[in-house]
């Protein structure tokens, strides 16, 4: 038998001015199932809440309806009061007679009739409410961070400093990401490695961080608080426990002319190598593709033709017979921080992008991209920090910087702005001018996007103090003409065509997500947008969460980001993860869908529409264990409570708690308009 208490709030004059609150009480007090009805001036006040608690106790109420403001305002308030009085909080609902009634109507008769209808509707709903309990799922308090660039490192440090174990997985041989390739960073021009390497070392030495470099995520099972992750540690050929980083193997390696990825192709490395001197961990990896010994093995030679690195290694750390190994980790939360790669500019492009063959990249050696310029400018780079052009090693006296190569160009497949290029172009112009005082820096731009703190001042400095020339217009062609690199462009402000005989050209290329991110996203059940960036749960209010509970995102894998943003996002994910780990169990609102296994036929239409992957197929067995069919099962830890599954279920075999069919049916019925 329902015993519902109805409490009609005056809200001072906000409701009472337009709605006759006593009339509402009068209309509801004898309604079937209502055991108590009263009105009061301010229900949300302390005495108002006391009124509710007292009524619950004295009248054995089984449900409470507060006819007042919107549930978005005070549902939690009254649910807490009910809970304190010993009534299950989910037996309490609010009837919105203020925002949806007294505030939007003038006629007292109409408003009162409507308020009575609204309240009666919610009373009928509450009669079908169930005393639900919060859902509790256990949480493994270990985090996985995928990607060891600045965002991944920051997230790992924040979570580790918070007292939880972090597994940090990086696919390259060293952490550091692209930030380790930069020479100086905007807007302060401080040395990138100087600010990064302390963080890298801290991450490596942190007792709570388990670092796996030269590794990738192979498989992810499970759900928030309870992930099972398999990590593939690729064969390094060097025993990480024995190696002491002496570097003798690199010195001895005969294969010395392999293009270095770290030097963006402008320098060379050996087959057994550490990507850069400050690498963390300082343990080399053997590139089996380019190693003389492994080439011999692949040809099927009977005897190994080289073995120099193993010979010279005093620790016996080199082992040519290692293979990929797999590690299983139990994880409660995952942070994706895989960063970016640059658009590759040439004619051949992946994934439907069109290249800029007209810019001569890959044909003219003195046409380079932003990361390559960073390596030239870098004191530890292939030219020891001197700006020398790749073709003949001469110092270029005229350098052209081209903005927006790839970005903002729907014709070529990328519609977005890459955000950082205006800033780093200004930086490059300044670095060039600081090193080549009599040099000429010319930049072709469309707009200047310098919105961060100190950014506009920085980019103006390039022009006003360092004399960079900024031409507003696009470049149509770049080609070699004898000793110069000809740049054909257009100056929209003067309306004239411009031809520059440059010595070197730097193209500011678009930031794109890394290769392999779509596959990783599939493993994590997160979605990517049409460009391959990871989708955030809500663009404004949930920028570091994804739609998969327990998977968070930080840095340039979500959208073009600069370093402060990447770090901010990383710390934000740290906070989210810490919040998740703050209790042993994750408590969730019980507004989840539950399948009636007796009537479900396992068509899985529900699973197809679930945006969160919360529904899986489950076998059902007879009492003697014989499998007799399959049904759908909703994971209460993952379900977000939208109810789309219920609307597509043809047999109505799934019920969303707190918005069940019975509840909604009774609301529609309560509005029965028969005279």
């Amino acid at each position, binding site marked *: 038998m329902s015993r519902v208490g109805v409490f009609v709030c005056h809200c001072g004059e906000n409701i009472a001015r337009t709605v006759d609150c006593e009339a509402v009480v009068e209309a509801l007090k004898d309604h079937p199932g209502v055991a108590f009805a009263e009105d009061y001036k301010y229900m949300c006040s302390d005495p108002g809440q006391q009124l509710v608690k007292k009524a619950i106790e004295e009248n054995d109420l089984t449900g409470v309806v507060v006819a007042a403001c919107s549930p978005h305002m005070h549902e939690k308030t009254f649910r807490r009061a009910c809970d304190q009085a010993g009534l299950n909080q989910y037996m309490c609902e609010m009837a919105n007679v203020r925002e949806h009634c007294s505030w939007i109507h003038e006629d007292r008769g109409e408003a009162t009739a409507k308020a009575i209808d609204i309240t009666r509707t919610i009373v009928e709903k509450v009669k079908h409410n169930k005393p639900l309990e919060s859902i509790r799922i256990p949480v493994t308090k270990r985090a996985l961070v995928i990607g060891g660039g600045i965002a991944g490192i920051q997230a790992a440090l924040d979570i580790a400093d918070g007292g939880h174990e972090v597994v940090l997985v990086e696919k390259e041989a060293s952490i550091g990401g692209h930030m380790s390739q930069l020479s100086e960073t905007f807007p302060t021009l401080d040395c990138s490695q100087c600010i990064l390497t302390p963080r890298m070392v801290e991450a490596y030495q942190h007792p709570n961080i388990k670092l796996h470099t030269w590794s990738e995520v192979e498989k992810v099972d499970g759900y928030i608080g309870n992930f099972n992750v398999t990590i593939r540690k690729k064969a390094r050929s060097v025993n990480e426990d024995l190696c002491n980083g002496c570097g003798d193997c690199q010195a001895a390696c005969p294969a010395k002319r392999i293009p270095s990825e770290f030097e963006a192709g402008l320098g060379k490395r050996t087959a057994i190598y550490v990507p850069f001197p400050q690498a963390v961990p300082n343990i080399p990896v053997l590139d089996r593709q380019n190693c003389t010994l492994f080439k011999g093995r692949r040809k099927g030679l009977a005897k190994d033709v080289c073995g120099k690195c193993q010979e010279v290694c005093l620790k016996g750390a080199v082992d040519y017979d290692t293979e990929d190994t797999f590690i299983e980790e139990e994880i409660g939360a995952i942070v994706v921080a895989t960063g970016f790669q640059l658009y590759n500019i040439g004619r051949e492009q992946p994934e439907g992008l069109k290249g800029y063959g007209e810019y001569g990249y890959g044909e003219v050696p003195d046409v380079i991209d932003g990361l390559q310029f960073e390596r030239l400018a870098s004191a530890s780079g292939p030219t020891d920090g001197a700006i020398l052009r790749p073709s003949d090693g001469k110092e270029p006296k005229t350098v052209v910087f081209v903005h927006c190569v790839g970005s903002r160009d729907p014709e070529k497949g990328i519609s977005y702005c890459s955000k950082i290029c205006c800033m780093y172009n200004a930086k490059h112009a300044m670095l060039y001018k600081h090193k080549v005082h009599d040099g000429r820096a010319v930049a072709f731009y469309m707009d200047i996007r310098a919105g961060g703190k100190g950014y506009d001042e920085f980019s103006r400095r390039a022009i006003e103090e360092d004399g960079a020339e900024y031409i507003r217009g696009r470049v149509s062609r770049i080609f070699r003409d004898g000793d110069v690199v000809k740049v054909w462009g257009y100056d929209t402000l003067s309306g004239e065509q411009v031809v520059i005989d440059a010595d070197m050209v730097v193209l500011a290329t678009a930031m794109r997500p890394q290769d392999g991110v779509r596959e990783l996203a599939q493993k994590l059940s997160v979605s990517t947008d049409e460009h391959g960036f990871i989708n955030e749960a809500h663009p404004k209010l949930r920028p570091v969460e994804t739609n998969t509970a327990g998977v968070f995102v930080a840095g340039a894998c979500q959208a073009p980001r600069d370093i402060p943003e990447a770090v901010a996002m990383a710390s934000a994910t740290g906070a989210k993860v810490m919040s998740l780990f703050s209790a042993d169990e994750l408590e969730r609102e019980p507004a989840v869908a539950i399948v009636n296994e007796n*009537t479900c*036929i396992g*068509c899985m239409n529900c699973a*197809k529409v679930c945006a969160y992957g919360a529904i899986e197929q489950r076998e059902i067995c007879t009492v003697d264990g014989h499998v007799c069919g399959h049904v759908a099962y909703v994971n209460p830890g993952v379900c977000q409570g939208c109810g789309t599954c219920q609307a*597509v279920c*043809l*047999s*109505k075999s799934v019920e969303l708690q707190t918005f069940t*069919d019975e509840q909604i049916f009774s609301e529609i019925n309560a509005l029965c308009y028969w005279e």
Partner: protein
Amino acid sequence: MNELREVARTLLTDGTVRVIIGWEDARRGARPVFVTDPAGADKLIFDTRCVHNLVTYLNPRRDNVAELGKIGLVVKGCDAKAVAGLLREAQLTRDDIVLIGVRCGGVLEEAELPEAAPLSPENVAPRCYGCDNREPELVDHLLGESQPEPPRPVMTIDERVAALDGQALEERWAFWTEQFSKCVRCYACRQVCPLCVCERCVVEKSRPQWIEASPHPRGNLSWNITRALHLAGRCVDCGECERFCPVGIPLSLVNRKLQQIVGERYGYTVSDDPETPAPIGDYRLDDKQEFIK
């Protein structure tokens, strides 16, 4: 027909299947037959009287059929689409059945004849016209010679739908409420539909009772609308629902209208490829929304 009997006999003899479900002669038309003995394969026929959609026997709720063992099912093109529908909804695994496809040139509207009659515009089942699955791909065997296209009936279903579309709202309301008032809620349409396989149909859910169960116009309208909506994007136009309706409600018109709706809005036509997702349960970012403010 001999080809069909041979294939059936072989499948039974070598144990590939335990039962063949096909059609046999019934003196007044054809009727479904379950053949478990290779000798019985001679009963199998295929002619213009074979209107039944035998896929209805694949309803997983029919454990008595499943208990017979692996099934070899004779299917026309429309029937094959129904199998794809069941595969899409995880009601079958492809390995559980052997599909014996027969090339079909159409079936009779009135099929209860002692002998098969050749098809003409006057006697062909209107739903056959425009058949797009004359060479079904989902099948394991495809038998019979290539058939001519089904003849155009005197009035096609599309023309009858168009005629209704051309009427005023009030005329259509009068037409449909009159038709649905005849409904006796026998649910024959649901029982025979190969895609209506729910353990507990929505109309039988009583807490709450969304669709009133007794046969009066209000409940009948709710039932018929719901039945139609549940088939949007799933109906294969096998025509069985209308054929079975004892009071002659023109369900083929409603079914065709729904096919037109999903065809026009989402470019969807039902096929026998189980990998193509059904339109309801799927979405595109640019779905038409002209009716939304």
